[in-house]
């Protein structure tokens, strides 16, 4: 009779003992280090894994910094990109941000509103060579009322057309179209030849916004329109110029510029279509350069050239504008222990300055800091083409990094709905404007 009770209590006891034991075990493992040492560690959260299959310049630079500064210790958390976004927002909500982390321009205003970010002007001022080494305006997306909250490392374009020279030539274009009308003619020709003109993978919903609409919109409206929009100074999504831009995007869909499954494949798969020679172009940011060079078949790499949207006849904005310049940037927690600030400044500088920029170029990326005598650096052919192309263009804002997170999310979805014929451009503009009004009131 007593046996049963004994057995049960024993089982319960053993289980809880195991639990407690393992709890202690893990305590020893993670927090057993000297208390003082633990607090001096810099809590650093980022997304650059040195073991990743796609090596990044940031991972290499962070490792270099660690090797050069063995006395600076880190408590690192590395998450992959999508996970990083979820996690950083959870940490921000709980007011538990690490010391140093990455932000996108669209997060800056929300984070600053909630008093989570430290202005970095003092840090920048400590080393004028670093501060002045940045290309003009690259820190603007992270600056509110003269205070800079984020320091970015790369600022390439989010819109680059990668095209297959041979396929375009077969369609009767020995060089890339110079006007929008010609561009549409090219697309029609390619459709006749049963080649997908532009491979699009918009499952993630940001591609159409970031790599298409940001540039297209600016060409039609001009940059002042967008500035006025984000400052709430009168510009509206329903303004005729912006509606025209929406119409231009929509027209690309109508004339069959894209593959039919554009909404169920992602940006990796859009490249696959291009690699297979089934598509003549794809449009993405400069980050795709590395991807092409590492994964495309050799004959595709050799045939690839770069362009941007051609000039649009009668449109109001600058016809050489390309969306770009904003991306992930390093930011610092407002509750930082001031004792750590010097090391943090050293860290951020070492991964963003013009010395670091050289490495970024080698990786085929476009750094935020200026680099002198670029000719001396060994570059891949596509990177070289791209750098040359960028000398003729100027940056305009990337919509999905400058608009608020809520508006970006709404815009991503609305653009996709317009592209599946749920909305006309006019309706899409109205729905967007409604979201905008809700936010601004």
């Amino acid at each position, binding site marked *: *009779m*007593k*046996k*049963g*009770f004994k*057995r*049960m209590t024993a*089982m*319960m006891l053993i*289980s809880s003992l*195991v*639990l407690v034991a*393992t*709890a202690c*075990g*893990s*305590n020893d*493992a*993670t927090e057993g280090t000297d208390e003082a040492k633990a607090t001096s560690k810099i809590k650093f959260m980022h*997304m650059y*894994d040195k*073991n*990743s*299959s*796609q090596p990044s310049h940031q991972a290499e630079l962070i490792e270099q910094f660690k090797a050069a500064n063995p006395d600076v210790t880190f408590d690192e*958390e*590395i*998450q*992959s*990109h*999508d*996970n990083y976004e*979820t*996690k950083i927002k*959870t*940490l921000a*909500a*709980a007011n*538990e941000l690490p010391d140093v982390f990455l932000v996108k321009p669209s997060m800056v205003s929300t984070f600053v509103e909630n008093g989570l970010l430290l202005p970095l002007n003092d840090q920048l001022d400590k080393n004028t060579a670093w501060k002045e080494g940045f290309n003009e305006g690259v820190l603007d997306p992270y600056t509110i009322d003269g205070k800079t909250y984020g320091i970015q490392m790369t600022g390439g374009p989010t819109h680059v057309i990668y095209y297959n020279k041979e396929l375009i030539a077969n369609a009767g274009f020995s060089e890339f179209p110079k006007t929008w009308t010609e561009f549409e003619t090219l697309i029609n020709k390619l459709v006749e030849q049963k080649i997908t003109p532009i491979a699009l993978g918009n499952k993630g919903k940001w591609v159409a916004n970031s790599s298409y609409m940001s540039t297209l919109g600016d060409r039609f409206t001009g940059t002042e329109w967008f500035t006025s929009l984000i400052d709430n100074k009168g510009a509206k999504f329903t303004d005729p110029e912006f509606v025209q831009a929406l119409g231009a995007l929509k027209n690309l869909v109508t004339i069959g510029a894209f593959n039919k499954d554009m909404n169920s494949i*992602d*940006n*990796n798969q859009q490249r*696959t279509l291009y*690699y*297979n020679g089934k598509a003549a172009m794809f449009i*993405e*940011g400069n*980050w*795709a350069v590395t*991807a092409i060079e590492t*994964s495309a*078949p050799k004959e595709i790499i050799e045939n690839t050239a770069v362009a941007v949207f051609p000039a649009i006849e009668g449109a109001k904005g600058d016809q050489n504008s390309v969306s770009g310049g904003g991306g992930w940037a390093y930011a610092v927690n407002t509750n930082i222990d001031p004792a750590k600030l010097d090391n943090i400044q050293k860290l951020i500088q070492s991964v963003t300055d013009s010395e670091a920029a050289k490495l970024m170029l080698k990786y085929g990326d476009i750094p935020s800091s200026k680099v002198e005598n670029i000719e001396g650096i060994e570059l891949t052919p596509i990177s070289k083409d791209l750098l040359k192309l960028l000398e003729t263009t100027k940056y305009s804002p990337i919509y999905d990094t400058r608009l608020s997170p809520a508006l970006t999310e709404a815009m991503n979805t609305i653009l996709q709905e317009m592209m599946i014929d749920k909305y006309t451009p006019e309706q899409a503009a109205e729905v967007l404007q409604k979201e905008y009004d809700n936010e601004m009131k």
Partner: protein
Amino acid sequence: MTKTANRISQIAINVFLFAVSLSCIFPLIWMLYSSLKTSQEFDLNIMSLPSKPQFQNYIDAFEIGKMGTYFWNSAFVSLFTVIFTILFGFFTAYILARFKFPFRNVIYFMFLTGMLIPVHGLLIPIFVEFKALGLLDKRITLIFPYVAFNLSMAIFLFENFIKTVPIDVEEAACIDGSSSTNTVFRIVLPLCMPVISTSIILFFLGAWNEFPFALVLIKSAELRTLPIGLTNFNGQYTANYTQMLAAMVIVVLPVVVVYLAFAKKVMQGMTAGAVKG
């Protein structure tokens, strides 16, 4: 006539079942052989067999995804989740099934609502709470929410099952002088074998595959679980599908093995339950 009709329906039924079974097993086979292809082979034709098996994908998966460490973490968390869920679930369900007491229905209903909660809505509150309790980023962290969220289903399954077990045997045992605890262990628990076997599989795979809590509550790389490791193969702008498939096989195979190991027990347990019931 009826004979041929029967014959035809027999064949039709067998063909139908084979089609269903095939659809259930083919994706697994496809994953296995596709994970041995090169990235370019995969891009060109997703159905084709690998021309030369690429075991490098698995080596990469272990190195890049750190699947080795994550594997043991997942095993640890899943094992304890199963043990505690079944233990707690069974005892609570027994009380709820057999006795009347104040708030019995309130407690039962409370547990059931646990099944209706969309966990993504609770990520931030749970994080805030774990921070306050000092429970973030420990080896045992994930066991708490996993057990708690599985309890709903465990209590539901056990309670329903115990109710179908006739009470006479227990009563007879008590009249014979067996203590209540003894009765629970000796008589009720063995009768619940079918539910226990099913629970082992269900709760093991639940914990093994869980993602959002594992992402939010765990910080250290050495404590992460497999589902988080899987996402290491999908970068911001790049993905390597064959490596990812290799990683998926690493994630999927153990659960399939655990299942196959227990599949027989589940069936046996059911028959045992049926005979005694």
